[in-house]
């Protein structure tokens, strides 16, 4: 896979432009609906993690994940848009194939997405739009001596799409949803191929440690399939998340693939303006 070297200041300029454009969209957003849907989900799954800075072997094991999603309809430039904020925490305890070594993987991910309706029918809708994603975490190898940890930190400008379908199952409403997110551009921290973290503390030049990413070196994707349904007075969400995070920068390969089944609790509420008495 080819790798490209970009000057650090050029990358910063590109990212600043990207964030500015996104913030412009945010600033022009107006609340259109006070109705907010908030879902808190918890799940278990299976993860496969590779980071060649620590080991050439793929480590596998169980994953725990928590996710909090908030979605609200707003207006941007007189167009209706869904504004989604999604925060995830996932943790995995992993073993190498021979079960002689273990790793701990932790990642926090925050996505802020604007979804513009593209197709709206009575039951079916499709929307898509830009997304900002920030990730921070670490991978710890329990038996490595001078290279026990790899830090994970990257931000992306991504594109996201969502399809929804409303139906009924045994007389109860069922809301099906599929969402996928694909990073387009980003910046990622990475040590160089053989660089020790000790050396990073000595050096004041980190230009080669902040890498420009795009699908050529960060082919990542997140797919979420969910079904919302009521049980009694509760509204629940059953979802499946396929999270494929991977990169190849500074000749270091890494991936974190996971399949997670989640159960969520849906809360819908309306913001009521409060005017204190004069």
């Amino acid at each position, binding site marked *: 896979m080819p790798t490209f070297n970009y000057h650090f200041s050029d990358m910063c300029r590109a990212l600043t432009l990207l964030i500015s454009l996104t913030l412009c969209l945010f600033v022009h957003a107006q609340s259109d609906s006070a109705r907010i849907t908030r879902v808190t989900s918890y799940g278990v799954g299976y993860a496969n993690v590779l980071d060649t800075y620590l*080991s*050439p*072997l793929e480590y596998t094991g169980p994953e725990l994940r928590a996710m909090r999603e908030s979605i609200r309809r707003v207006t941007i430039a007189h167009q209706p848009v869904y504004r989604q904020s999604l925060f995830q925490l996932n943790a995995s305890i992993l073993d190498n194939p021979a079960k002689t070594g273990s790793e701990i993987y932790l990642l926090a991910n925050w996505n802020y997405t604007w979804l513009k309706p*593209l197709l709206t029918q009575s039951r079916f809708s499709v929307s*898509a739009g830009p997304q900002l994603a920030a990730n921070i975490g670490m991978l710890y190898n329990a038996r*490595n001596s001078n290279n026990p940890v790899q830090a994970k930190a990257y931000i992306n400008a991504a594109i996201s799409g969502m399809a929804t379908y409303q139906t009924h199952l045994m007389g109860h409403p069922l809301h099906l949803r599929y969402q996928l997110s*694909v990073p387009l551009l980003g910046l990622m921290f990475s040590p160089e191929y053989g660089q020790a973290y000790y050396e990073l503390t000595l050096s004041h030049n980190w230009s080669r440690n902040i890498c420009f990413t795009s699908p050529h070196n960060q*082919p990542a994707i997140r797919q979420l399939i969910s079904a919302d349904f009521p049980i009694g007075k509760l509204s629940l969400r059953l979802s499946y998340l396929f999270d494929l995070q991977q990169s190849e920068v500074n000749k270091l390969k890494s991936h974190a693939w996971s399949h997670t089944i989640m159960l969520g609790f849906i809360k819908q509420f309306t913001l009521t303006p409060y005017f204190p008495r004069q």
Partner: protein
Amino acid sequence: MKPSLLPSLLLALTLICSSCIRETTFSDTPEGNFEALWRIIDRQYCFFDYKSAQYGLDWDDIYQRYKQRLSPTMSSRALFQVLSEMLLELRDGHTNLISTAQTSYYTKWYDDYPANYSDTLQRIYLGTDYVTTSSMQYKVFQDNIAYLRYASFSSAISEGGLDAILSDVSLCDGLILDIRNNGGGLLTNSEKIAARFTNEKTIAGYMFHKTGYGHNDFSSPITIYTTPANSRVRWQKPVVVLTNRRTFSSANDFVCRMKQLPNVTIIGDRTGGGSGLPTSSELPNGWSVRFSACPMFDADMQQTEFGIDPDIKVDIQSADFNQGIDTIIEAARQYLHKKIAQ
């Protein structure tokens, strides 16, 4: 972008981004583990060219020679023997192969040389009235020379502890810092102690790292400094650092730093070296491998992988040993008295 193009773009990106990034895998067989180990070292080990010039290390030739010793039915123990012997060809004290049953070590960097250190002699010199602070033992000899023993750079030291030690011996005429048989540990401890012996920021050496798979794919050098410990107690009088062949790794780095400082003299035997910062990897069968990955050079951009010569070479003499005398400590005391008299 037209809204109708978005789903198409997403579909195309989904297909592109579903391609997997994986590392080349090797089977958990004798041949697979051999290939994996050879490749890890080939790509990441940092002293190929230097050792090729020093003693003719040829990693490709080693591949051919050791591959002949493999057989599909060989036992795990026999495989360990072959792979550890292959690593011994690197002549590197930082290189180990580690299985659940055993660990391989290269020990010729000290086995083939005089020990130049004795626990028995150290007990005689320290006696029972020494003080222990911050993992260091120290006492003041009758000739008003302070003797400070630091056995491992893995042992924790605190700035407060160093202040206490240097304050306590501040009236002494000279200091002997004994790091013989100190096999290394944390480079930060080396930096922390050396910072007590300089008043100026001094170049201690240089560090490189691999930037690619080739034997010569190295970064530009990072300069390593010894920076004075400001607002702390700093030693201003003559210092002798005692070394032997088992002064290794971070202790070797410490000697590298101290050699650049004006009041410091190195006495004893050549150090054991170990100037590569080690890193770890592993094989398909779960064995761990450790090896030098980032080379460090001295302030003159010279390799110290095979050790640093002392300023004054002294060996412990058998006749002295039999009388309970440490020839190296005595040489240091004499040197300090001469230096003080000047």
